[in-house]
């Protein structure tokens, strides 16, 4: 019998949704910060792959998950520095550099993985679930939602910090101005380039963290192309969320729900639909979301435009 509509199914689904949304939450909130400063980084996919690989490699060598996560963030930021140098200092086209970053990430991680790790066949330990007292004792949902690992919980913290940074700090105010009217910031005596570097590094650091979650909090192995388009979906999430961090959190959850649904439906023997159809769900959802939201009315006015002092 189909047990799709039971409460247990629903609770499992939601728990899985949050877990599967985690890399998207990190990457899309990072991209919100970057885009708010006017830098469109389509190199998220490659950056996340780098984070996933370096996180895996560091954890493999040291056996430490925190060190792995730190390595993932650092790898993301290293890619961010390359991206920022070419787009902000050299003022190259952001789309072209982003595409190059994606190809570099894909090729470099595949090469390094095949060279050093593919023959070992070993995985790493992944972060263990932590029960939250009281909350995890709630019926149905408690068990499913509040038995996640710490990385999943930290998405809430990251969202709150992003809101404070963007809307409550002087840095965030200037950063938002940089994306809308960079000249005004220049005239106020602040360096547009410095703020854009900062935004890109925060953004790519979070993307690296999102990637590292895939190898350290989700599966215990690195696989070539493990991000499977999540970097691109994160870009769609930002548009759907209208460049708001809180929006990015919830839209990511929605996409996570589709990933989870896809997995759960594949496991239903009663449904006579090819599993590929379910696998396509999150990507289909991305296209639908972009069509529904469309427009650019909420986009920062100078998104994708290098700043020229003249």
């Amino acid at each position: 019998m189909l047990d799709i509509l039971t409460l247990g199914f629903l609770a499992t689904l939601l728990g899985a949704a949050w877990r599967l949304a985690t890399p998207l939450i990190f990457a899309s909130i990072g991209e919100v910060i970057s885009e708010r400063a006017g830098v469109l980084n389509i190199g998220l996919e490659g950056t996340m792959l780098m984070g996933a690989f370096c996180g895996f490699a560091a954890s493999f060598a040291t056996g430490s998950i925190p060190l792995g996560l730190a390595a993932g963030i650092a790898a993301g930021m290293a890619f961010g520095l390359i991206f920022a140098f070419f787009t902000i200092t050299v003022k190259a086209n952001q789309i072209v550099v982003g595409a190059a970053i994606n190809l570099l990430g894909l090729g470099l991680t595949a090469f390094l993985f095949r060279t050093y790790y593919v023959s070992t066949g070993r995985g790493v330990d992944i972060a263990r679930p932590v029960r939250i007292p009281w909350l995890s004792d709630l019926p149905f949902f408690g068990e499913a939602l509040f038995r996640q690992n710490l990385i999943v919980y930290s998405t809430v913290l990251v969202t709150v910090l992003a809101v404070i940074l963007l809307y409550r700090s002087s840095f965030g105010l200037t950063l938002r101005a940089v994306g809308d009217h960079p000249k005004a910031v220049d005239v106020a005596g602040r360096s547009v380039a410095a703020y854009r570097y900062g935004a890109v590094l925060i953004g790519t650091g979070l993307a690296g963290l999102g990637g590292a979650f895939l190898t350290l909090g989700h599966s215990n192995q690195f696989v070539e192309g493990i991000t499977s388009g999540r970097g691109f979906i994160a870009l769609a999430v930002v548009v759907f969320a209208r460049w708001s961090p809180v929006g990015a959190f919830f839209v990511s959850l929605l996409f996570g729900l589709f990933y989870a649904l896809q997995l759960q439906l594949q496991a239903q023997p009663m449904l006579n639909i090819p599993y590929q159809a379910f696998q396509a769900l999150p990507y289909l959802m991305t296209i639908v979301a972009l069509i529904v939201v469309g427009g650019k009315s909420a986009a920062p006015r100078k998104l994708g435009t290098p700043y020229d002092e003249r």
Partner: protein
Amino acid sequence: MSERPFLRMDNIHKSFGEIIVSAGVTLEVEEGEIHSLLGENGAGKSVLMSILCGILSPNSGQIIYKGRPLNIGSPREAIRHRIGMVHQHFMLVPNLTVAENYVLGQGSPLRLIHDMEKVHARIRELSDRYGLGVRPDAVIEDLSVGEQQRVEILKVLYHGTDLLILDEPTAVLTPQETDRLLDLMRGLVKDGKTVIFISHKLDEVMRVSDRISVMRDCRVVHTTRVADTDPRELARLMVGRDVLMELPRAPADPGDVVLSVEGLSCRNDLGLPALRDIGLQVRRGEIVGVAGVSGNGQTELALAIAGLLPIDSGRLALNGRDITGLSPAEINARAFAHIPEDRHKMGILMPLSLAENAILERYDQPPFAARGMLQRRRIAAHTRDLIARFRIKTPDEEERIANLSGGNQQKLVVARELARDPDFILVSQLTRGIDIGAIEFILQEMLKQRDAGRAILLISTELEELFAICDRILVMFHGQILGEVPADRSRLEEVGLLMAGQKAGHVAQEA
């Protein structure tokens, strides 16, 4: 020259590659004066002030401010020395509030924003003191251009300033708003501040200045007390020769209606109503002007008439035949000429040659094309003819049009449109961004066209241009035609009130 001037900019040179934008400028400003920088577009006024504010670094030269050399090339240094500038293009972030714009870039970036109430209170206090009517919690993009300018001025005052620079502040204002601004400038000087006022409008400069420096070709050519000069001398200094302020013209002799517009309504590109029930007629042998502060529907009016903007309702007719809903090409083919508002976007193609630009609308028609091939020799001959008739300064017809000055580019657009022998000429911002010599030539050409029996609609934000050649002036406000005034300079006040949205009638008319 005084012993110890308040501000002295000494032999300032600046170039971008081979383009010189400041050719050894020397300027002295005394404390507590309103010092006007007068000059045509491109004379180097804004560049000089951007250097003073540290936004541009000069190649050489030095600045002495309050007796000490200023470390140039850093905006923060200028802010620290209480030098503030209101830029022609506002430095306000559109999606932030007034108060947020004021605290932008202030203090440590890591500070949390919490004491906004104090900021609001100070803005209100300053706004009341100078009567500016600025609301601290208003979002910039909801404000009108005039309001945004007051927000900009108050921003400079909020940060504390001894030297206030205003770059072409009156370009976006109605005559009444301009009066208020000039009063404010006098008030600021009374408060002990020094004002540098950049303008190319002689009357304003004469009214408000203590001293005037005239700039031409990226140099200061003359500095004088306002009492020692007159508008004619200033105009001569600006252009380097005498200017005809009044063009001689005969009274109009209007004939049949050529263009008729009835009940025209349409929306702008954001989907908001831009034109509401516009009705107007232009007759053979007259020039009808459309005045208004920019952004009141003039752009949409021109686009709608030219068939470039879909209309919601209304009817357009040319020579008695309905042209509503026709394509721009079909309208052009009915003896319709269009000199557009922004020549770089719509009038010419910058990478192409003069000759190619001269046949833009007719490249596929005889005699310029035959059997699908361009007839190079005919095109060249045609272009040389236009160059000679309109005295366009260019090496030859193969020159890239991007290498010509704005005035010569506009002359080519005018020449091309008139060469099609039109019955009706739609003109927007005819003289924007071009030198006075070219302005005069083009305005005279328009009068010749009128006398030859053509119908002309001239849409412009420059009242000077409208009064110089129009026979009657319609004033637009919020997408409507608010009134019609004969193009007589004594009716300037009336036009100004209509531009501000006030119906005239009770206005006392001067003889």
